[in-house]
């Protein structure tokens, strides 16, 4: 059984935002509009790009950190969910079952990565935008929490194709929308348990670190960055 993970090379990321747009499109993220985004700090993204600045003045160095749910192996969010709407899947993806979620937002409070977002209002799909929705991913109702799923539907689809062809899933066959779009190939997705996978090799690089590894959450998103 696979254990899905991701490696993001911060030295390759140039902050173009392609991953963010791909994620929105792939996962049917609704636009929440100006009032909420601007007035209430409720920007609605599964994947954000956080600027990280070191130094100042002419010496300032800006680094862009693509940031999403890190799919903890020991996720704090699932412990606080009173209705088991969020859970750790058998392949290591932290799932969010919208039909179970009661919108208490405990998981959002528990998440040290600030990775979850909440549908405060019924998502709007003006004009023909609903027709452009990805049929593999549901349109969420109001009152539920949502977050990055590591493009779980793509994993399922790849497994389906592999099964139809009677072979195992090859390394690199499943990839997330963000990784697929990235023009600098900064994002790598794959099976951390596959001894030959690229993602496993990169995750063991000397440049690799995990966000807030000290919390004991065991994230499966690794970052690569040059050593200071």
């Amino acid at each position, binding site marked *: 059984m696979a254990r899905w993970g991701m490696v993001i090379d911060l030295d390759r990321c140039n*902050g*173009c*935002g392609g991953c*963010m*747009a791909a994620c*929105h*499109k792939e996962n049917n*993220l609704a*636009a*929440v*509009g*100006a009032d909420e*985004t*601007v007035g209430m700090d409720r*920007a*609605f*993204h599964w994947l*954000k*790009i956080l*600027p990280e*600045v070191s*130094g*100042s*003045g*002419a010496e*300032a*160095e*800006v680094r*862009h950190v693509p940031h999403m749910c890190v799919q903890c192996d020991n996720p704090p969010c699932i412990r606080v969910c009173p209705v088991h709407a969020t859970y750790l899947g058998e392949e290591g993806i932290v799932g969010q079952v919208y039909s179970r979620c009661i919108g208490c937002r405990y998981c959002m409070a528990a998440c040290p990565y600030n990775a979850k977002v909440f549908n405060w209002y019924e998502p709007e799909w*003006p004009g*023909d*935008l609903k027709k452009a929705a990805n049929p593999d991913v549901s349109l969420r109702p109001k009152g539920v929490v949502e977050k990055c799923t590591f493009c779980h539907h793509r994993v399922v689809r790849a497994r389906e194709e592999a099964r139809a062809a009677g072979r195992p899933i090859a390394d690199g066959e499943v990839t997330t929308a963000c990784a697929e779009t990235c023009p600098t190939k900064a994002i790598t997705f794959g099976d951390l348990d596959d001894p030959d996978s690229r993602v496993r090799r990169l995750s063991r690089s000397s440049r690799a670190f995990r966000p807030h590894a000290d919390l004991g959450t065991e994230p499966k998103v690794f970052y690569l960055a040059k050593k200071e």
Partner: protein
Amino acid sequence: MTGAAAAPTLEEDPVAALAEGVLDGSRPLEALFVVDCDPLHTSPAGGLLREALDRIPLVVSMTPFRDETAAAAGFVLPSPVFLEAWQATTTPAGVPFSVLGLGEPVVDPPLFDTRHPADVLLELARHLGGNSAAALPWEGYDAYLKHRLEGLAVSGQGAVISSSFEESWVHYMEERGWRFSKRRDTDDFYRELAEQAAWWNPVRGTGNWERLFRTPSGRFEFYSQNLARRLQRLGAGSDAEAFSRGAASLGLAAPVDEACLPHFEPPSGEGEGDLWLSVFRPITARGRLGIASPMVLEMFGYPFLDGWRTWAEIAPETAHELHLEDGDEVQVRSERGEVEAVVMIRPGTSPGIVHLPAGLGHREHVGAAGGIGANPLDLVADVRDPLSGAWSPNATRVTLRLLRRRDHGGPPPAHGGHG
């Protein structure tokens, strides 16, 4: 403001030149067709053009979107979006070999009642008859594309990119060693190209060095030949002296030697204000579809997790000097106008400059974008780059004035105002 009195420039800003020609009567137009662009919104000379449109009897806008230019046009002929039309692209800048992409419409027929601008123009030519009809005999845009590709098909050069890499590779080897000139049937070539979407020729054909090396020395010259020739012509001659005369008449600040190389030409902007304005176009605001979609509006300013509004990037030093903080709402004012923006302090930005993103501030309802944010091009002063003639978007002086502190309303504190 008409730019007729502005300093002479080597080239002309196309939008400004068109508008000025119409306004001063030197280039009266009977009809203007605007195809797939929105100059009223995207050009700093948009204001001039808006005036000029009133003096053109027939203005037709062919666009998929209800944009500002369409709103000012007499007729709007809705055109399909890129997924609904044939399209061809040639070698992009920076690719060292020839490529050609041909895209079939994937949504056919188009979702709405639209027509490709080329089809409209071809039909107009047919109705005009005479020379126009003879010059444009094609039935439709795809027939025209096919005609343009005929030479490529017959030349036998390059290869249509095939799904199997080997095929291209073999062809590549053929190109290097053995030469087979494969004359291809145009219809077959076109069909194959439409299917595989691209053609490439990894090897530049030899034998036309005369065309490639039209330099005075007949060798590689690492400066712009075009600029040099134009400057000489301006100096009324064909020697180095004419070149210097030409360069001097434009008032170039750069030494003559550098004029035809990429160089920094300091802005000659005047006017009040202690900051320079810099207008940039974020990646989210490029292309015609982008800013119409609510999704893109939401990530317009994604590095700050804040879409839907115009922000003003300033350096921490500048912010400190002006007593501004992240998220404060300010007014940016130039001689030409004023816009509202939100302060975003960006370490690494040069002090003394305000960076404003272009792309918002549509006066018309373009998708979801109508009335959101501000168009910083409204601020840009009429200062032309001496060589390109473009309205220099970085030669405007502006002032920042605090309107509202972040999070709480009320009047700005006494020390907050500046300029």
